[in-house]
């Protein structure tokens, strides 16, 4: 019996969500017994694979099948299911990224396992197995009990800490049979949002709304984000008016995020917007209207003109960074 973690890679490297999932898997294994096995798909160098050992993975199953370089949910599902069988895993952990969302539900159906999607906590015990997850778009939490033999956890990105639990990982090349018919989707083009910090995994986010008056004024928002090393986001009206791309829209019908810091500039704080960001650890609201609902849920607030305040913040950040 063991815990299997799906360690996702981007261009042959692990990123934060994979280490969060590995840490979670290690801590879960301490409660349930057994060791952690990681399954890694595609072309990844051994030096990179070994990094998983630092986060407590004792075994690594490396499925380096050339065909897996192009994503297909069916084929990835079979690969992970075969790894689960090989590792005799009772628990399978994913980071619930877009890739996790594409595979975990299929795997759950394949293995007849219960899946807790957007999980935020470890279970208190192995039996009963109860995990908290987000629901109602950040307006609530629910405790979900899983009763199936195989239990699958889709960990909400940026909701679990990363801890080192140095282990020497053994790497096994694993070559399960994946039928050609499982490669049933064909990727014809990949467009990367290059050079930018990915919003869904950003620790710091600077977001702006209608208070910015027009897309031409976003320079100061980007300047603050750049100074902080933050991703940029926006409110729904701003995306609807095409001032900003839709992939930046956070809120009930946009992206749900939980960064360490969310700075909302010129966003009033409609309930649908707050739903997408309410699990952020620290929230800052900057608004000229002191009655803006955002101040009710913010940790820090400034009532003032964004056009005056934001450049000063950027200067202060630069000063802070240069003194460290």
């Amino acid at each position, binding site marked *: 019996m063991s815990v299997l973690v799906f360690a996702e890679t981007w261009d042959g490297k692990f990123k934060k969500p994979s280490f969060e999932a590995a840490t979670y898997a290690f801590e879960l294994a301490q409660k349930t017994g057994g060791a952690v096995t990681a399954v890694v798909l595609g072309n990844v160098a051994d030096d990179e694979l070994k990094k998983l050992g630092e986060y407590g993975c004792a075994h690594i199953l490396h499925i380096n099948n050339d065909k897996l370089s192009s994503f297909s949910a*069916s084929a990835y599902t079979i690969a992970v299911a075969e790894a689960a069988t090989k590792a005799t895993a009772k628990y399978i952990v994913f980071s619930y990224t877009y890739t996790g969302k594409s595979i975990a539900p299929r795997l759950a159906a394949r293995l007849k396992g219960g899946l807790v999607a957007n999980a935020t906590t470890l279970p208190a015990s192995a039996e009963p197995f109860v995990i908290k997850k987000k629901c109602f778009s950040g307006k609530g939490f629910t405790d979900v009990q899983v009763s199936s033999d195989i239990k699958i956890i889709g960990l909400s990105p940026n909701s679990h800490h990363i801890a080192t639990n140095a282990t020497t990982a053994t790497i096994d090349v694993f070559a399960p049979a994946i039928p050609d018919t499982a490669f049933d989707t064909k990727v014809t083009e990949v467009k990367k949002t290059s050079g930018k910090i990915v919003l869904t995994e950003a620790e710091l986010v600077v977001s702006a709304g209608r208070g910015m008056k027009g897309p031409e004024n976003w320079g100061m928002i980007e300047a603050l984000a750049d100074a902080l090393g933050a991703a940029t986001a926006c409110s729904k009206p701003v995306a609807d008016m095409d001032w900003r791309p839709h992939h930046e829209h956070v809120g009930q019908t946009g992206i749900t995020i939980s960064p360490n810091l969310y700075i909302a500039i010129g966003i009033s704080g409609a309930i649908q917007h707050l739903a997408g960001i309410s699990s952020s650890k620290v929230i800052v609201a900057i608004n000229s209207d002191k009655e803006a609902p955002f101040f009710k849920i913010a940790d*820090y607030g*400034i009532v003032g003109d964004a056009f005056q305040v934001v450049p000063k913040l950027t200067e202060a950040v630069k000063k802070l960074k240069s003194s460290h």
Partner: protein
Amino acid sequence: MKFLVCISNVPDTTTKITFTPDGKALNTAGVQFIINPYDEMALTRALEIKEAQGGTVTVINVGTTTTEPTLRKALAIGADDAIRINAEPVDALFVASEIAAIAKAEKYDIILTGRESIDYNSGQVMGMIAELMGIPSVAVATKLDIAGTTANLEREIDGGKETVSVSIPFAASAQKDMAEPRIPNMRGIMSARTKPLKVVEPTVVDKPTVSLSHQNPPAKTACKMIDAEHPEELINLLHTEAKVI
């Protein structure tokens, strides 16, 4: 082209979410229920393709009689017929198994859902249906175009977008941008009353997950206000007090 669009019945996006005193369920008093917004985008795209290329659009929901107004609204928007599986949608695999059984028997070409429901936000049902039917799946799709028996989709990936082609039958979940929802017109509303709405009883018993209790997020402490004349104080507090930068 035979479309099957899965519809969740969810609280309106403006709803202040509270739970019953025992925490077991949503407090539905005064709550208005709507078609899950992402499902509505999937439905609208299915209707656009049907209007351009021919075919039928069926909507399906797992729910009790209380969800019928939501299904009627989907019919008013333009779906041809509706199926309601008469059960509480307590577990995603249960819901997916019920829908997959019908989708398989009725040989639907394209099965669409929203990318997630705005109540439990799990995004599980589409992938589960696809696996149970043994067909391809494309999650979080922002575009869907059909040419003959091939579909071209664009989907979100971490840090960008991917264009994917797939043969029918397949399943996909809709993200914003797939279509702009429509407001039903009077003719649609009138005709929705007489369109077929079939009720079927569930056949699956397995429910591997159950939601035991619910809570609202912990209340926030009061907001600390900083003088607009000295915004640098905010950066200082974020560094020394909140320790996030």
